[in-house]
């Protein structure tokens, strides 16, 4: 299973954190520090795989954001790269040419999309269209509810 997913900028600022196991706040902060320093120290054209404690760390840089995924030892690293790529594609489809600012200002949407794609450390849906449709439907539900609630009752 996947243990955590972190998104951080080139300056090391955290943009998204998803933890799939229960970890204390202090431990989380330490892991974030370790990951950012490890990944940001990597040379540009090096291998995308790292070893950290008993986990494999897969990282990939997209524009100004680093996507860092920690998987257990029996998982497939190449597939983890595909998982990261799939998430980026989903974000891209949703926001339309996604950039870091989109994720900053709409972080809760990024989480909603992630929660339609991954769950409990495993992949939930392998079809891009299905995930997009679910997100759209949820958004629609939210809007209609809001509209409904905010309309004056006649």
């Amino acid at each position, binding site marked *: 299973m996947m243990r955590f997913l972190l998104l951080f900028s080139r300056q090391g600022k955290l943009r998204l954190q998803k933890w799939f196991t229960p970890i204390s706040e202090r431990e989380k902060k330490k892991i974030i520090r370790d990951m950012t320093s490890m990944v940001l120290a990597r040379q540009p054209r090096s*291998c995308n795989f790292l070893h950290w404690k008993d986990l494999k760390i897969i990282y990939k840089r997209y524009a100004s954001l680093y996507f860092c995924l920690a998987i257990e030892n029996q998982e497939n690293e190449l597939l983890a790269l595909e998982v990261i790529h799939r998430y980026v594609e989903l974000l891209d489809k949703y926001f339309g040419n996604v950039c870091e600012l989109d994720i900053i200002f709409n972080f809760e949407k990024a989480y909603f999309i992630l929660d339609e794609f991954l769950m*409990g450390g495993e992949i*939930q849906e392998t*079809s891009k269209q299905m995930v997009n449709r679910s997100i759209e439907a949820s958004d629609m539900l939210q809007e209609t509810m809001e509209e409904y609630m905010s309309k004056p009752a006649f």
Partner: protein
Amino acid sequence: MSPSVPLQEMIRAIRSARTQCEERGVIQRECAAIRAQFRQSDNGGRSHNLAKLLYVHMLGYPAHFGQMECVRMIASPRYSEKRVGYLGAMMLLDEKQDASLLITNSIKNDLSHSNQYVQSLALCTLACMGSAEMCRDLAPEIDRLLRASNSYIKKKAALCAVHIVRKVHDLGELFTPAARSLLAEKNHGVLHGAVVLITELCERNQETLERFRKVPGTVPDLVQIMKGLVISGYSPEHDVAGISDPFLQVRILRLLRILGRNNEGASDAMNDLLAQVATNTDSTKTVGNAVLYETVLTVLHIKSESGLRVLAVNILGRFLLNNDRNIRYIAMISLQKIVGTDHNAVQRHRGTIVDCLKDQDASVKRRALDLSLALVSASNVRSMMKELLLFLSSCPPELRAQAASGIFNAAERYAPSQRWHIDTILHVLTTAGGDVRDETVPNLIQLITNASELHCYTVHKLYRALLTDISQQSLVQVACWCIGEYGDLLLRGECQETEPVQVTEDDVLDALETVLQSHMSSPATRGFALTATMKLSTRITDNVDRIRSIVSIYGSCIDVELQQRAVEYNALFRKYDHMRFVLKMQSSVFCSGSNRQVSPLVFLPQVCDLLDLLGGSEVTLQPIPAVGGTAPGLFTNTSSTTGGDLLDLLGGLEPAPPELSYLIFSAAPTVQVYEKAGVALTLSCEKQSDSGLTVTLTASNSTDSDISSFTLQAAVPKVCLINRANSSCFTQSKSFFRLQVNLKMRIRISYSSQGSAFQDTVQIDSFPGLSAAGH
């Protein structure tokens, strides 16, 4: 969906803060406002407030006061509030927080909500942070959803079940029937979830694994599904670069691996499929390689037929040649795992692996090093070692220690000749001397001593290395030892194996002095150099005064260790000049801490002269002619022994502190003469000449505690002469005897261990290597 304006405004405000302090100020104000809002009753902006808090939390600020708000929002009937509430629960609550229990009821209600998106929120949250109690409470609900709901919910319920099984292993039983039936679904999401669930169940429980193996059709079903994915037409919904649903394919392959492990029947059923996937999968993109990689792992872990195994190893070989660094890295990791079992297959790719040692990437280099070391064998050791030594000279510093120790191990196991072995070790010490382990020095010394025909060659080589570079401590230590030991060979000049070079005594002493004075030398190295200088005093003729002056300088050295030695050596020069030849100078290895049996160094003593009994001032001593080494001189004693059978030990030299141990180990036949309570005394004799015999006594402590105040007294019949050399840490002592009659010896040892004193006497009547007449 309309963005949350209050949230975005706050984010903008935080981002525009120019300093950390300013940012903190903004956040404090915002948090205060949020707290105030939380206290108010229901207003339209609750979800925005919580969202703001979650943002603040992500920046690293405390947000625990939002936990109760999450609980309230989850219970709200509004979807927007539920959504943010559940998100908040996943971010702020975990099973360690008490508040998490409060949402169990809400989750339970939402699991049966009419709207599937609400259900999905509950399922997602449960799978993310559900504690064991929550899981136990809600497991039946999940099982119900696994069986009767739409595919959207089923796939989520499956992953929720996976989480439950991880938290509460016993509940696996509950989900097994449903899991099995899910394999018949068509929806890829559900299938994926089902495969993950079955994998989890099989990994946890051996019985469940057997059940899935036995149930007719699990393996064939999976094979069928895979075939459908691999062969059938293009499915745009799940296609990734021409591979149909690679995520599902990889999961199925992993499940097949588990089912086929150690099971002939299951393995047979999947052989064809694996061959098909291995040959048909397009490997131009990463995604294809991901599937191939999983296939290779499966083939190598089940009981596959040999043709398939060869195919798998060949795929890995192809990976090694791939331009993509990631693929090369993966290939090497996999080859590392099978190098033990399929050694020959991996050997075929040795050339490529060795080439990867030159890769730019540190991870690839590390893998290539591990693999190369594993591939060294008796037949390829020379060529492999050449490559490894080349690698060592240019490898990144974090890999040096590993490479050096790997090279040593390989050299030890497969060295084709002693000279090659010594050359290799010297090469490593020259390139990476700072990264080798501490045992290398004594090991190397032992090796050199054993290779007696190479002494001349070795000492020449080491001397040359010393002249070039004195920064590598291990190398310098070994070189000093060698020069001290075989200095006469060095001075003699000729050597069969290397070009002859004229080395004068001054040159050698210059080299040793440079080491002594250099700031790069560690205290241990200085010790070696000082001892070597002292040893040379018996091997050279002209420059004894120079040695004397060097040694006396260090009598006032700050380093206690060196000072001790220098003082003792000085004493030798002054009072016991004749004894210098007898004192077998040997290399010093510092005991680390406890006085346990230290690994002995092989040392061939150079017999010089026999000496008089020493017992204080009444002994008149005659100086030995300085013969430099071989002919024994005779000596007469005019004094009597001091009382009894026990003789006074050497006066001037105090027993050295435990850190200073001069280790001697004689290669002659040994016999154990005493053994009690873990303290053992072994004795060996070496007949050096007609009238000279060297007896070596080695004491050792095999108990767990330290032994202190160890003294050893030896007495022989009056016609024999004893000279006892320096006693030091209890490990050894030495005596020399001139024999005229049957040699008997009485030894008294006393020591204290664990607070109590022990004393014992041993009589030795027969000496190994001697005839009964004692000659």
